[in-house]
């Protein structure tokens, strides 16, 4: 299998080289660009599987670059920003990027983000197992989108149903938050976004209220969730 190619667009020479080293060590192929114009040209060649894009660039800034690029390409882009990162996170601005990472960032976090984004951008095999799941008195009907505990029906929203379905159908597997965001909420995992966790807490509460053990939906800290 050929190496995955990542395009680095970052104007700081030293950081650009550090990142290139890091990515090469982690087994990627790396292309380097140091300004917006040449970055856009290289990006449009469609030689790469992922772009790491700095927001502040000479000649053409990252946001405009991405806007132009998005007219022709859906390549996964991680935007690197130094300024106002928190503001953008809280207000949920993404400028069309698939993920967002703020300077200063740490290399492990960056690698995880790249890995996650690459995985998510692979064509997802649609879950065809529609129908009914039933475990220890908990029944999920996918066509009617209803949940029963024994004979008692539990009111759930579409999102809560999807979330429960995803976890129950993958019993004993840890499903990562990034994957759940994509499959359940159809959006990217943001750094401060806890909406998925909140939905999960609500599902747990509802199961507990119906005298079913909600704690079987376990939190795997730092990774995701697992139904046991």
């Amino acid at each position: 299998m050929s190496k995955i190619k990542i395009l680095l667009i970052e104007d700081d020479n030293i950081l650009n080289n550090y990142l290139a080293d890091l990515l090469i060590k982690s087994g990627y192929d790396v292309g380097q660009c140091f300004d917006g114009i040449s970055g856009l040209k290289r990006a449009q060649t469609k030689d790469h599987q992922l772009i790491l894009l700095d927001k502040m660039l000479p000649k053409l800034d990252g946001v405009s670059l991405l806007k132009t690029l998005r007219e022709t390409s859906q390549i996964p882009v991680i935007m690197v920003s130094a300024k106002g990162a928190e503001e953008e996170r809280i207000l949920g601005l993404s400028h069309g990027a698939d993920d967002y990472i703020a300077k200063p960032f740490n290399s492990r976090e960056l690698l995880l983000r790249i890995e996650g984004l690459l995985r998510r951008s692979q064509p997802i095999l649609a879950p065809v197992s529609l129908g009914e799941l039933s475990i220890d008195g908990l029944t999920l009907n996918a066509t009617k989108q209803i949940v029963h505990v024994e004979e008692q029906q539990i009111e759930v929203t579409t999102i809560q149903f999807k979330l429960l379905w995803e976890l129950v159908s993958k019993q004993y597997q840890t499903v990562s938050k990034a994957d759940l965001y994509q499959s359940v909420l159809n959006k990217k995992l943001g750094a401060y976004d806890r909406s998925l966790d909140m939905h999960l807490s609500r599902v747990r509460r509802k199961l507990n209220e119906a005298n079913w053990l909600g704690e079987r939906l376990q939190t795997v800290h730092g990774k995701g969730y697992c139904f046991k």
Partner: protein
Amino acid sequence: MKKQKLWKLCLIIATGLVAFFYILSVLTTSTEEGMSFISEKDRAQLKLWGKEAERLYLVGDKKQLNNWLTVLKTQENIWVAVASFNIEHIAGEKLKERLHGGQHFGRDVDWKIHLYFEKNPTMELQFNQVNASFLIELPARMRPGSYWLTTRIIMQILLPMAILILLATLLYRHIITPLQQLENATSAFSKGNFDVRVRKLLGDRNDELSHLASTFDQMAIRIGELISNQRQLISDLSHELRTPLTRLDIAVNNFESKNSRHHIDRIARESLHIRKLVEDTLTLAWLENEKPIIKIEKVDLVDLLDVVIDDAKFEFPDRDLKFNSPTNAVINNSSHQALCPALENIIRNALRYTPVSKSVVVHLYLDAGNYCISVSDKGPGIPEKYLDKVFNPFFRVENSRIAENDSFGLGLALAKRHLISVRAKITAVNQQEGGLRVMITIPIH
């Protein structure tokens, strides 16, 4: 309150000036009238001459009368005569009785003299007993109104001019004085004096200019606050950065390859510390300067607290964390991304200061249109005098030797500003039975 100045100006200039000129015109007319009469003394003199003429006429000595008239004519250098007439009925009705009385040849001495006639009028003094009159051209020395021209210039030109100049000066000072004060303040402000205020210099006036002054003051307060916050933040940040940078330097300098794992960990820890410090400071600066109000979603506080508490239990498994709440607590127009770091910080703080195996209680309840979250710990609390300062950036209780890596005195400051961005309030109180209680009040709508 709108257009105060306009109404004031209308009142002064339009109404005031019309009234002023009306009064002036009435005054001029009456003064002219007053000045048109022959003086008492001269009137008496004229009447005396009339009597003398009648006496001489009645005596019947025409020569003596003529002599007297000639003397008078020379003396006063005027025209004098005595005349009479007979009435002849020509046609029409019978004549009325009183035709002989009244003036026929000239003016009565008690009438006013037209000051605008160049020539002096002829005065007529009727004889009492016979149908004849003594006629005399008014002597120049008796002509009234010799000061009328001067008076008219004063009343119609000088007086209105003086009053209009006075009015213009007053208006100018009324408008320009505050503008000058504003200008002084603005230039002082531009030179870096952020304490300058204008409103109080304008006294109790309430108009456009005083509103401008109030607006200026608000601007001055806001900018002054912003700049001093900024300075404080930069100075605090650079101060706080010294410690981890020094530690990082030492770790790098003492790096030994045989114990590399240990040194790398230290370096990583310090770098993380610096990174968090910079990140938090930037966030704080943003929240402080922009003061954003975030209203993007509905949040169920129960769900959010469940998440935060779940994490906290994992992080502090040896403390007891209790959570009392209703099953739902939905607030509108909020943001869980702003609420979450604040709640995380406060609950984590409570757990950190609570001794092992003691409990922290989180209580969520509804109170008068707000949801309240109280977080009570079993820690040492905070000295009363510092209670309102703990939310200031980089504030640390003196001698607090809790040198944990992620404690910079930024946590509560950030939490407070995150909460403000979703219109929530936060206070801290010491509990009677010991420990700190942090109260958060979040509006439902």
